[in-house]
């Protein structure tokens, strides 16, 4: 983080806007990023502009969860946070979990249980599930439902997605 040079006493870290732009340094999926952004850019917009299109734009009001990403390991709505709030933090997007040839165990479990239809909610679902399993490797069904309660799915009816998280947890044992 760049320390501010404004005032003698000020060793407080700061990011300044110059000619309408500012630079945010953050880490996405383990790789350091330096973003040139507008001060009122949301994290979701910055991520999508930088190519992390797994984070989806649904409601932009914090209600649907399709924009969920992990910020320092916790699931948050990237449409509600300013990109500048991610300064010096670790973001995980769905792009950081597995590859088409080697999917993450959660991605595999979602496919195996048929928990994916159109796919729009899936990045938010899987990242929220990852945050849960990282903390609670053997969750109860109630815990799974709570951990996914911010992500709306218009297709599946949730049952298979809950099964998917259970399956991923069992396979991990």
């Amino acid at each position, binding site marked *: 983080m760049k320390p501010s040079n404004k005032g003698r006493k*000020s060793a407080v870290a700061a990011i300044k806007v110059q000619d309408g732009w500012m630079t945010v340094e953050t880490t996405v999926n383990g790789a350091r990023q330096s973003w040139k952004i507008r001060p009122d850019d*949301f994290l979701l917009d910055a991520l999508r502009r930088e190519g992390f299109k797994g984070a989806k734009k649904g409601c932009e009001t914090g209600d649907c969860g399709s924009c969920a990403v992990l910020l320092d390991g916790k699931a*948050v*709505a990237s449409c*509600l*946070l300013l990109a500048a*709030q991610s*300064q010096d933090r670790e973001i995980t997007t769905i792009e950081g979990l597995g590859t088409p040839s080697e999917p993450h165990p959660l991605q595999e479990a979602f496919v195996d249980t048929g928990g994916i239809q159109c796919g729009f909610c899936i990045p938010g679902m899987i990242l929220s599930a990852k945050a849960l399993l990282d903390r609670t490797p053997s969750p109860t069904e109630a815990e799974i439902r709570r951990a996914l309660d911010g992500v709306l799915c218009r297709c599946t009816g949730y049952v298979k997605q809950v099964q998917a998280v259970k399956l991923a947890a069992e396979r991990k044992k």
Partner: protein
Amino acid sequence: MLKNIEVFYFPETVKDAVRLLNRHAPHAAVIAGGTLITKSPNLSTRVLVDIRGIDMDYVKVQAGRLRIGARTSFQSLADSKLLQKWAGGALSRAAAAVTTHLIRNAGTIGGDVARALPYNDMPPVLMALDAEAVIVDGKKTRTLPVEEMVRGHMWRIVGRRALLTEFRLPSETRKRACAIARFARSASDWEAMVHAVASMEKSRGICRNARIVLGAVTRHAQRFPQAEAVLEGKPYSESLAAEAAQAVFDGLTPVSRASAEYRREVASVLVRRAIREVWNENETQQ
């Protein structure tokens, strides 16, 4: 929106944060979780002070009092073992009931009180437990009952130079019984229609230090001294609960959202249920 931001600061101490707020007043604002401020247009804000680096994320007991850092997230409140035991875990349950995991992870108790919309979930419970807010504004540190803090946006109450650092709950509230009865259109609707909280000491069948608080029905959450007076010092009975509920019905003038008659009716029903639940933990609400 926040188009006119010129600088973001990331202070690591209360002192630095307050100094920045003072230096840039009235154009500086605090950003905690960001779940409210980022969507609320205030074109005059030019400086954002992000307080995430300050050690204000804790729940602890000191000298018998409960202290909650203003930057503590809803999820940390829900998970706190200490809070789960304080006043029967009412505040922790209220935090666990916040709409979704995405908001519980980001939203903070300080933000919920600083920008106390009438239906915010923390203020009524804090008020029922006699909570005080600790405010630091450069010159001094002072405390203010949450009841006073929520009468408007924080900057109207204590000015734009102030940082809310902590909530304190008096030691005697630890043993109080506290029940919440909340009614919204759906479980995921955070704008409750009516939010009733009852707390009191159950002293050998007698109601002591009763608090009746209603959120979401008037311009800000408020206590109902008329209903509290009905309960005070009396042995609990169903009819006493009904009498207190009647006092709410008679004294309440609800504003906006749904008709006043409807809300007055629902408010009195929820107050009665909350009081009953305080005395009979098994009763289910809603």
